[in-house]
Every structure is written in structure tokens, then in C-alpha cells.
């Protein structure tokens, strides 16, 4: 065993740091601070273009598609450093659309779309979930019917995050209603969100930021925007999930938040003594620090497996469960430490740590079902990992 990064990896890390020190502005950090984990404001888009110009959005893509052809592990280092700088770049376009296009797109699609994605010029909102199809995604009902060179699409998507801020929808729709096996009738489309017939309605979440509902009313989408074969979309979606396993828990930088809490308790006095002297605070923060380190190690393991050409499956489920439930525990313990001040939201006078703990307390709620139900993740560990039978 060896828990150190190699020399080449450390060199790359330094390169990333140098680059980020140069391009990251306070505005970029500010835009994401205090609760904008999913939104893409103008500064974040600016950063994304800069990272794109550098070629690092497509860090590990093959060179023929405009990538840098770097080892898979570099992606993990890059993501970790971005997180450390408090910024993010590269969403669904990089993580999901591009890998599927590379494997299943037509030559024309690859030429047209991949370079734009790599340069950070376009971004996608994921259009999977519907009111009656969440975890059980194969139940989706949005219909796409072939009509000459187009498909005509009708239906409703929900929680399509960033649909109001990006140009394209990565849409899963039903192309075969007669197939009794529901997952065999789904196709994938790249839809211009400005197409006539599309209505986007923002939904305000408990965590302040917006997600959206997207309504399709006889929307015409050119057939050349269908990705891969008709009715094979389900398999592409499943495959795409395998690409970014080690990065799934990189939404919240719990390590940095715990560091913030530690500093806060050293500096803040309660009844004349630093909070950090309170045994409850010491125990709580030590526990979080331990768990932050576990998240780090589980992430390293998953990334290491990927770099060995292995698709981590059970290991990724372990990482997602641990990492995201840790984010929830960070919020819970943090709120307990803050006491009465815990209730102050970002932007409020007197809000400790700019309200990030209070915000995380609301934001983290959905992490244990979004992007994969944690109940199902445990079933994956039990069935694939330990061989238990599954009823569904």
C-alpha cells in the first residue's frame, strides 16, 4: 500500500494550483459561496471558459476529440484543487454528454459538439427526472415521436437544474411505448432550450437556489440530435454513470467547512472562554475531522481503481453514502455548535461563517437521494458486493 501521490501527480497538482491562483477571482468564489452549488452565474461561466481554453475541461479525453489524453487520476486531482479554491467548472456536458457522444455519437455529432463542450462554450441541463419517474427512472413518460427528419416531443421534466441558465437539455424520452420492458424504450436527445414549445419554470428550493420544471409542448427536435441508437438510451445513461464515480461527492467541500468551524470555535468566546474549550465542541469537531479524512480516503480509493482501469461500483456506492451523509453530519454538528446563531442565513447581520453552515443544513438534505438513492446504494453494496438476493 502507498498513500502518497506520485511525483508526476504532484507536479500536475502544482500546475493546477498555479493556474487557479492566476485565474480565480474573488467574484467567482463569491458566486458559489453561501449556497450556489448548482447555479452557473456569469463569473462561473467565465471560469469555465478559461479552464476550457487551457484544455482542462477535457483533461482525460483522448486527443482525437480535443482532449489532453492525460491519465484518469489527473481528473481527480484537478477536481480536488478546484474544490479547494471554492470554485467548480464542468457540469453535465463534460461528465455525461461528452463520454456518451465519444462512444455512441455520429462522426458529425462528435465534430460539432465535442469541441464546444471541451472549450466550455456550451453547457447542458440534465433532463432525466419527471414527476412520476425519479429513482425509478425507467418509468419516464415524456414522449418523442418520429416525424420525418424530426422528433416531436411532449411531456414534462422536473428538477432540470440550470435549465434556465444553460443552452441545452440532455433529454431522456420514450420512443417506444409498446415495449413491456420499460427501460428498453428510451432515447437520448440534445435539445436547444430555446426551441419553440418549451416552457421553463423555475422552482425555488429549500436551499434558495433554483431548479426548474421543463414543459415540452409539441417541440420539434432534429433527428440528428438523437444520440446513439433509438431505444438504447437507458444503457448509455447507465454507462455514463460509471465515468465519474470518484467525483460524485465533490459537491460540498466538507473538509474546508470543518476547517472553518475549527477556526471559528478557536476565535469565538462563549461566557468569556473560547468555544474550542468546550468538550462537546472538541469531540464534535474531532469526529468530523476523522470523517472528513475517511471521505478523502474513500475518494482516493475510488479514483485509484479508476486509474487502474477498473469501474468502481460497490466502492463508489460506499463513497457516495459516506461522503454525502457526512455532508449532512457536518451541517448537523455545525448547527449544534453554533447554538442560537445557527438560524442566521447567509446575508444576515450576525450570521456566523457567512451562514454557510445554515445553508448546508438545508442544502445537504437532498444529497442522500439525489444522484442515486442511498437506500438503493446500500442495496448495491449488499447485492453486488456481498451477494445478497434482490427482489427488483
Amino acid at each position, binding site marked *: 500500500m502507498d498513500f502518497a501521490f506520485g511525483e508526476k501527480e504532484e507536479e500536475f497538482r502544482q500546475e493546477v494550483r498555479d493556474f487557479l491562483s492566476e485565474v480565480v477571482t474573488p467574484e467567482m468564489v463569491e458566486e458559489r459561496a453561501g449556497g450556489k452549488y448548482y447555479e452557473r452565474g456569469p463569473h462561473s461561466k467565465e471560469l469555465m471558459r478559461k479552464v476550457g481554453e487551457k484544455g482542462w475541461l477535457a483533461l482525460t479525453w483522448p486527443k482525437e476529440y480535443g482532449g489532453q489524453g492525460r491519465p484518469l487520476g489527473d481528473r481527480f486531482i484537478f477536481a480536488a484543487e478546484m474544490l479547494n479554491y471554492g470554485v467548480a467548472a464542468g457540469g453535465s456536458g463534460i461528465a455525461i454528454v461528452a463520454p456518451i457522444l465519444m462512444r455512441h455519437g455520429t462522426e458529425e455529432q462528435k465534430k460539432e459538439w465535442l469541441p464546444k463542450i471541451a472549450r466550455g462554450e456550451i453547457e447542458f441541463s440534465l433532463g432525466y427526472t419527471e414527476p412520476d419517474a425519479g429513482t425509478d427512472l425507467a418509468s419516464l413518460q415524456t414522449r418523442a415521436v418520429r416525424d420525418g427528419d424530426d422528433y416531436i416531443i411532449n411531456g414534462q421534466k422536473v428538477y432540470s437544474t440550470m435549465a434556465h441558465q444553460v443552452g441545452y437539455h440532455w433529454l431522456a424520452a420514450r420512443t417506444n411505448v409498446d415495449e413491456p420492458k420499460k427501460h428498453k424504450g428510451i432515447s437520448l436527445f440534445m435539445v436547444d432550450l430555446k426551441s419553440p414549445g418549451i416552457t421553463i419554470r423555475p422552482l425555488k428550493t429549500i436551499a434558495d437556489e433554483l431548479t426548474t420544471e421543463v414543459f415540452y409542448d409539441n417541440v420539434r427536435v432534429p433527428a440528428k440530435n438523437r444520440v446513439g441508437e433509438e431505444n438504447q438510451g437507458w444503457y448509455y445513461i447507465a454507462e455514463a454513470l460509471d465515468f465519474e464515480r470518484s467525483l460524485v461527492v465533490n459537491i460540498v467541500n466538507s473538509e474546508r467547512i470543518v476547517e472553518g468551524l475549527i477556526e471559528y470555535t478557536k476565535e469565538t468566546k462563549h461566557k468569556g472562554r473560547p468555544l*474550542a474549550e468546550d468538550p462537546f465542541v472538541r*469531540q464534535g469537531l474531532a469526529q468530523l475531522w476523522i470523517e472528513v479524512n475517511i471521505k478523502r480516503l474513500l475518494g482516493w480509493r475510488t479514483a485509484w481503481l479508476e486509474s487502474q482501469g477498473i469501474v468502481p461500483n460497490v466502492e463508489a456506492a460506499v463513497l457516495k*453514502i459516506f461522503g454525502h451523509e457526512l455532508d449532512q453530519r457536518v451541517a448537523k454538528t455545525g448547527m449544534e455548535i453554533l447554538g442560537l446563531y445557527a438560524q442566521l442565513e447567509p446575508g444576515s447581520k450576525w450570521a456566523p461563517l457567512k451562514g454557510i453552515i445554515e445553508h448546508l443544513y438545508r442544502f445537504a438534505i437532498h444529497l442522500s437521494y439525489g444522484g442515486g438513492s442511498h437506500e438503493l446504494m446500500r442495496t448495491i453494496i*449488499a447485492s453486488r458486493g456481498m451477494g445478497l*438476493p*434482490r*427482489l427488483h
Partner: protein
Amino acid sequence: MDFNLSEEQEMLKTTARDFLEKECPKSLVRQMVGDERGYPPELWRKMADLGWLGLIFPEKYGGLGGSFLDLAVLQEEMGRACLPGPFFSAVILGGLFVLNAGSEEQKTSLLTKVANGELILTLALTEPSAGYDAASVEVEAISDNGDYVISGTKLFVPDAHIANYIICIARTKKGTAPEEGITAFLVDGKSPGISCTVLKTIAGDKLCEVVFDKVRVPKKNIVCKLDQAWSAVEKTLQQATVAKCAEMVGGAQQTVQMSADYLKERIVFGLPLGSFQVMHYYIGNMVVDVDSSRFLTYEAAWRLSEGLPCAINIAMAKAWTSNAYRRVTALGEQIFGGVGFIEDHDMPLYFRRAKAAEVTLGDASFQRELVARQLGL
């Protein structure tokens, strides 16, 4: 970065697993709880023949010169097998203390014998105050005519009833800091004035009360410098803590495996119990606990092996693994139901050991306090 064991470590693991499955079946483990010595001497000899008793001692002291990662691998298998006997006290607590603090002569004479199975050592540190810190060392050794005379009670001393030598950590001076004035004495287990009582423990291991009643020890039996033994004690405790964590990881891993096997066989309401999702939830939690414990532990062992700073890593590993092992065995008991409540079953062995390991060498809150200090809190 590499999350695999080395080839040699894989070999050690396989050898250890095969050997212990054959030589240390659960029937033996149960039998040894009621045994006066607590282990079969033949097994001890065989372990010596395999080189295990000297695994981490340098070759010049009759050892194999292995690393802490190697030790962790072996300890994991021992934890899996619930191996009874004095490996932890003789090799890890006693042996490593001598290695850390002993003179060249002491190392040569003592470690060679530990490695070939002739000598059992143990470390007598804790007292009725039940703390692992320097301030808890109150047993006194008073200088008298070139000898030292030790008086007081040591408690929770593992395997003292069979130890050839007890390394007694005693106070020789009331210094300004509690760490000052602590000395280690190599005390012959048969010395006049020593009385040893084996306690009845949850894990069925042999923890003893050792009463020192004016026990006379020659000056040359001081290990390490007079008054200055504490840092060697601390170092030994850290090494032992990593080893204990590895042992817990092995036990926890085996508990998950046993539970999953049972869930496939046991039929309830016409279906395998393991097809009910709540059981998936339990198993999922158990696997998360095992994996997280494993990597914290192995990172700490790796840092120890590499000579990197690791006090915080060791404390983190013990704080987490202590509770994780307990949680895993509690779920194991829940999964097995009544059959796991019967003493003949393997589940009680793990359930009992998990609690013992949790409180040994500092429980989670003790270790978290160490972490907090390392974080500057």
C-alpha cells in the same frame, strides 16, 4: 498511490488465514476462555516457527525485519480468527517497548527469545484509575541500596499470569510535568511480592490485576533511562493502537462476511432473509464501517512504516474503528437473531471482542480528544 497489498503481504495474509483456520478453530477459541493459560503452547511454538513472533523485530534480534503494514496484515487475520493468547502483550506491547527503549544488550537477549517463542513479555501500565496518560501512573518505585522497590497495583495487565517478565511502568520522581519521572522496570514475573489475579473479562482474554508488594528490582533491569521512559511508552502505545485497529478491522470484516452468508441461507416468510431491503441497509452500513476503518487504519500503519508524523492518524483510526467495530457486531447480532445470542455461535465471540477492543488503548472519546489537540483546539 496503491491500495493493494504487496505480493509478500498477500502471501502473509493467505498463509495466516490458512494457518489460523486450521490451527485456531472457533472451538479452540471458546475452549481457551476457560483455560488457565489462555492459549495452547503448541500453537505458540508454531507461530514462532512461522516467524510471526519476530515479524517486526530487526533481523539482528532474531526477527524478520517486517514493517508495520506487515504487522497490520497479520493482526487483521488474527482479529478475524479471534486468536487467543499473548501475541499482543508479548510481541507488541512488551516486544516493541523493548525495541523502542531497551539497551542493545536487552534487545539482543530479550527480543531473540520473544521471537523464538521462549519468552513472554507484557507491559504493566494502567492502574485502577484506568487511564493511558502519564498522570495515571502512580505506582511508585523507590531507590534502595542500588535496587528499586516497587509498590502498588497495576490493573488490566494482559497475560501477566504467564509472563516471564512484566515491564512495569512506575513513578520514580514527582516531576513538574506528569511525563517526567516515569521509569520502566523489567520485573521477573516470579519475583517475591508479586501477586497476580486473572480478571473475568467480556472478551474472555486474560487481563490481570498485578499487585506489587515491595518488589525488589535490580537497577540494571531499568529499560530506557531513569525517569525518562514516558516517550517510549507513548510510542509503544501508538504502535500498539494501530495494531489493535487492524485486529478490529479483521473481526469486523469477518462479522460482515458471516452475516451476509447467513442472510443468503436463512428463509423467512418463504424468502431468503437477505432479499429484504432493510437487511441490505444493515449490510450496506456494515461495509461502509469496515471500509472506512480499514483505510484509516492502513493509512496510519503506512505512515508509521514510512516514518511520517502519524499521531493524529492513529488517534483518528482508533476513535473511528472502536465504534465502527461495535456497530458492526451489534448489527451482526441483530441479523442472526436468537441463534447469535447462543454462546456456541461465533457471533458472541466478535460482539464481546469488539467491546473489549473499543475500550482498550483509549476509547473513541479519549482518542477524539487527542485529535482535537492535534487540531489545535
